[in-house]
C-alpha cells in the first residue's frame, strides 16, 4: 500500500473523523448503549466499509453521522468531525444543510424508500430542489434526467414519468443512489445498499456506485454484514462488535491476516470467502490439507466442507430418494394475457443421503418446486417420485405417511414458529398430529430433539419471542426432525441469519445429515453457501433448470453464461486468500 499510487489520498486532514462515539437508546429499562466508543477516520475520496453482525452498532454509527438515529437514539458522547466541524453539535437547521448537500445517504430497503404515490421524476426533482443544485423548472428537469442517466437508467426521459411500482428493486436502488449523489456530496453513506437485491443485480449496482463515486471523488462509507463484499469494494475495513471497533485497517491485510479473534471468526464463517478460498486452492475438497485455527472451531466453513467431501467420497452409491420429472407449474393470472409458467419442465434426482442445492434468483421458481414437492401446491404437469412412489395421487392416510417422511424448514425465523405456543408444544406438534406415542414418550422425544439441535431442555416451556433468529431456526429444524423423516427441504433456511450463526446452523445441518442419513434439498439464492454444503447443484433461471452437475463441476467448469454470471457475482473476487 503506497500513498503514491493514489493521488486522491494526499489531501491533508481526514474528511470524516469519528472519535470515541457513544450512542444510547432510551428504553423502559434505562439506556442501552448501542455504540460504545467507536472511532474511525476517512479521507476524501476513499472507500471504507463497516462490517459487523446485526446489533453490532454499524448502522447506528452511520446514522449518527447525519443525525438520523431512529426512535429514542441519542449521541451521548464523542465527536463526529466532518471537515473539522463537529456534526454532533449542529442544530437541526444546520444539519439539514449538511444532509444531502455535503453528505448523501443511500438507504437499505429500496422498496420502502420511494414514495409510491409520486412519480420518480417528482422525487428526484424534489431532492434536487431541496439541495439547491439547480433552479428553474427546466434546469431542474434537465438535472433530474442527468441523475437518472448517471445511475445507469436508459430512457431517463420516459422513466421520470413512471412510478416506483413500475421499477424493479435494482432500478429503485439506482434511483436512490443517483439521488444520493445528485448534489455531488463529499461523502456518501450507503447502509447495506444491496442486501435486499439479487446477487447479479448487486454486482452491477455496486459497480455503478464504484464508478460514480470515483468520478465525482466522493468518499464512500459502506455498511455491510458480508466481509467478502466489504473487502472487495472498500480499501479500508472497520470491524465492529458489540458497539466497539475491534479491528480496522486496509481490507487486504485484515482479510489475509485477521488479528482479533472476532475477525478471525468472521473470515472463517463468511461463505463468500470460504467459497473463494476453496476455489483458489485448485485442489478437490477431498485432498485439501487444511486445519482450522482454534479460535474458529465449529465455525470454519472450509473445514466443514472438507469433512463432508471426505464422508461423501467414502459413501457407496445409493438409490435416488427424490426424482422429479418434467415438473411444470402454470399460474393463471387474472386480466393478463396468457399464463405465467413459474416452473417449466424441471427434472432432477437426488441420491439418498446427499444434498442437492437448487440455486436461483428471486422469481426463478425454486420455492415453487419446494411447495410442489411438499404437496402444498399441485403440479400442473410432470411427476414427483419420493422413494419410487408417485406423490400426486396420494390422499388421506397415504398423504399423511408421505408428510412423515419429508419435512420443510422455511426461511423466516421470525415467522416459522407460532408465537403463542411454547417450544415444547411446537416441536411436539408433529407427534400429536401423527398420533405417535403417549404424553411421556412425546415429552422425552421433544427433549431428545432439543438436544440434537443443541438447545437446552429448559427451553421447552419457553416461547419463541425469547429466542434469537438462529435459535428459532434450530427449533424449526427440531420440529422438522420430530417424525424422523428421511428428506428435509430447506427453503432458504439460513439466508436470514448472521454469518456466524449461519455457519453454526450449516454445521448442525451437516452433522445431522451424517448422523441420520438425511437427504437435503437446499434451496438458496446464495451460490457461496452452496459451495460448502451441497454435493450437487441445479441452477434455475426463469422456471427452468439451466445447469445441473456436481458442485465441483459447476464451480470449476460452469457451462452456461448465467451460471458464470452468478459465480462472478460471489463477492471477494480478486482477493488473494490463502487456504
Amino acid at each position, binding site marked *: 500500500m503506497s500513498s503514491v499510487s493514489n493521488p486522491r489520498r494526499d489531501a491533508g486532514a481526514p474528511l470524516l473523523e469519528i472519535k470515541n462515539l457513544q450512542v444510547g437508546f432510551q428504553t423502559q429499562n434505562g439506556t442501552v448503549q448501542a455504540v460504545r466508543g467507536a472511532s474511525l*477516520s476517512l479521507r476524501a475520496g476513499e472507500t471504507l466499509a463497516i462490517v459487523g453482525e446485526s446489533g453490532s452498532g454499524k448502522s447506528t454509527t452511520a446514522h449518527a453521522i447525519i443525525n438520523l438515529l431512529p426512535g429514542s437514539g441519542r449521541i451521548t458522547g464523542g465527536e463526529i468531525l466532518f471537515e473539522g466541524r463537529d456534526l454532533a453539535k449542529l442544530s437541526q437547521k444546520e444539519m439539514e444543510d449538511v444532509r444531502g448537500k455535503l453528505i448523501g445517504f443511500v438507504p437499505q430497503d429500496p422498496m420502502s424508500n420511494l414514495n409510491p404515490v409520486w412519480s420518480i421524476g417528482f422525487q428526484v426533482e424534489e431532492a434536487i430542489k431541496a439541495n439547491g443544485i439547480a433552479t428553474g423548472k427546466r434546469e431542474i428537469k434537465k438535472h433530474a434526467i442527468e441523475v437518472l442517466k448517471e445511475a445507469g437508467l436508459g430512457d431517463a426521459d420516459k422513466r421520470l414519468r413512471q412510478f416506483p411500482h413500475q421499477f424493479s428493486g435494482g432500478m429503485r436502488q439506482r434511483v436512490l443512489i443517483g439521488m444520493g449523489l445528485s448534489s455531488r456530496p463529499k461523502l456518501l453513506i450507503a447502509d447495506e445498499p444491496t442486501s435486499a437485491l439479487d446477487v447479479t443485480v448487486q454486482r452491477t449496482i455496486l459497480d455503478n456506485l464504484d464508478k460514480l463515486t470515483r468520478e465525482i471523488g466522493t468518499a464512500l462509507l459502506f455498511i455491510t454484514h458480508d466481509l467478502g463484499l466489504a473487502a472487495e469494494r472498500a480499501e479500508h475495513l472497520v470491524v465492529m462488535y458489540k458497539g466497539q*471497533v475491534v479491528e480496522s485497517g486496509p481490507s487486504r491485510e485484515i482479510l489475509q491476516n485477521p488479528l482479533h479473534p472476532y475477525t478471525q471468526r468472521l473470515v472463517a464463517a463468511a461463505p463468500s470467502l470460504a467459497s473463494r478460498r476453496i476455489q483458489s486452492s485448485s485442489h478437490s475438497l477431498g485432498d485439501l490439507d487444511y486445519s482450522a485455527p482454534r479460535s474458529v472451531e465449529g465455525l470454519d466453513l472450509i473445514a466443514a466442507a472438507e469433512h463432508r467431501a471426505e464422508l461423501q467420497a467414502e459413501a457407496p452409491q445409493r438409490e435416488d430418494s427424490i426424482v422429479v420429472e418434467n415438473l411444470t407449474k402454470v399460474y393463471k393470472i387474472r386480466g393478463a394475457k396468457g399464463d405465467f409458467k413459474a416452473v417449466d419442465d424441471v427434472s432432477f434426482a437426488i441420491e439418498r443421503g446427499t444434498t442437492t442445492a437448487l440455486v436461483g434468483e428471486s422469481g426463478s421458481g425454486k420455492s415453487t418446486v419446494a411447495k410442489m414437492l411438499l404437496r402444498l401446491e399441485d403440479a400442473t404437469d410432470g411427476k414427483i417420485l419420493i422413494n419410487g412412489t408417485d406423490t400426486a395421487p396420494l390422499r388421506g392416510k397415504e398423504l399423511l405417511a408421505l408428510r412423515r417422511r419429508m419435512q420443510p424448514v422455511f426461511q423466516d425465523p421470525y415467522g416459522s414458529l407460532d408465537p403463542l405456543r411454547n417450544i415444547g408444544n411446537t416441536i411436539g406438534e408433529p407427534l400429536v398430529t401423527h398420533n405417535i406415542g403417549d404424553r411421556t414418550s412425546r415429552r422425552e422425544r421433544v427433549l431428545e430433539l432439543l438436544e440434537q439441535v443443541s438447545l437446552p431442555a429448559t427451553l421447552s416451556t419457553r416461547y419463541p419471542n425469547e429466542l434469537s433468529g438462529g435459535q428459532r431456526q434450530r427449533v424449526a429444524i427440531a420440529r422438522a426432525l420430530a417424525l424422523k423423516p428421511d428428506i428435509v427441504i430447506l427453503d432458504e433456511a439460513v439466508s436470514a441469519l448472521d454469518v456466524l450463526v449461519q455457519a453454526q446452523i450449516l454445521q448442525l445441518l451437516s452433522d445431522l445429515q451424517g448422523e441420520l442419513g438425511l437427504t437435503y434439498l437446499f434451496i438458496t439464492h446464495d451460490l457461496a453457501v452452496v459451495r460448502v454444503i451441497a454435493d450437487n447443484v441445479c441452477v434455475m433461471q426463469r422456471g427452468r433448470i439451466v445447469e445441473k452437475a456436481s458442485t465441483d463441476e459447476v464451480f470449476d467448469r460452469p457451462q452456461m453464461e448465467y451460471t458464470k454470471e452468478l459465480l462472478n457475482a460471489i463477492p471477494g473476487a480478486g482477493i488473494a486468500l490463502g487456504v
Partner: protein
Amino acid sequence: MSNEFTPVPSTGPATQERSRNHFVAPLEETPLVAIDVVKVAEKPSNLWIDAWRDARRRPIFWISGVLILLVLVVAVFPGLFTSVAPNNDCQLALSNGGPTAGHPLGFTKQGCDVYSRIINGTSTSLTVGIIVILLTTVLGVVFGAFAGFYGGWIDSVLSRIGDIFFSIPYILAAVVIMSVLAQYRSVWTISLAIGIFAWPSTARVLRAEILSVKQSDYVMASEALGVSKLRILFRHVLPNSIAPVIAITTISLAAAIVAEATLSFLGVGLGSDIMSWGNEINQAQRDIRTHPQTLIYPSVALSVTVFAFILMGEVIREALDPKARALR
C-alpha cells in the same frame, strides 16, 4: 506504508495508536461472547404474559379495573349498597325532593329514591352490555374466522352478509325492531336488537387479522406436517388473531350500554317497569329544568361506567400491540 487510515481505539493512549495502520482492539475490551447463546429471562413470556406485565404497570389499568369491578359488584349485589327498596317505598309527597337522611341523591318524580334506583338499575345496563358482546363476538368470530381463513366463495358470501348488516345503522335498526316487538320488550329483546347489527365490525377486524396471520410460515409448516385445516384455524390462526377482537369487544360493551340507554330514552327500549339507567334518564327529562339532579345522577353513573370500559379497552389494545408498547 502510509498512515492515512487511522482509527483510534476507544480507550487507551490515542496518540500512540493513531499512527498505526492496522488497528486491533485488545481482547479484554470486547471479550468474545459465545455465538448465539440462549439467554432466557427468569419467567417465560409470550404475547399475553407480556401484555399482562405491561398493563399492570399502568395506573389507568388499575383505575378502570377497580371501577369496572365496582360496577360488577353493584350489579350482582345491589343489596350491599342500599337497603331502600327502589319501587315499593315511593311517596308522591317526596316527588322530586332533595336529599334527606338515608336518601343522599334525593327523589324522582314518583317519589322514589334516586340512589337506590341507580344501584338497582346497574344490573340491567350491564346485562344488556354483556349479552350484546357475547352475541357480537360469537357471530363476529364465526363469520370473520371462516371468511378470512377459507377465502374464496365462502369469504364472498360471508363478507357480503356482513356488509348488508354493516350498512344499516344499528341504532336505527334497533329502533325499528324494538317498535315492532313492542309487547315483548325485555333485556333479551333489546340485546338481540343491538347485537344483531353490531357484529360486522368484529368480523371485519378479525377477518383482516386472519388474512395476515394465515400467510405465516408456521401455518405452512403445520400444513406440511399434515395438520388438518380446521385444527390449524383453531390451534394457530385464531389464537394469533384474536387480540384486536378482545380490545374492540371491551369498547363495544360500553357502546352497547350507551345503545340501551339511548333506546330506553327514546321510549323504545325496556318497558318502564324495568329499572335501567336509560329509563331513569327518560323519566327525568320532563323535569330537567326544575330538578336536574334526577337526570344528572343516572347520567353520571352511565358515563363513568362507559368511560371505565373504554379506558380498559384502550389499555388492552395498547398492551396487546408490541409496537404501541415500544413507543411509550
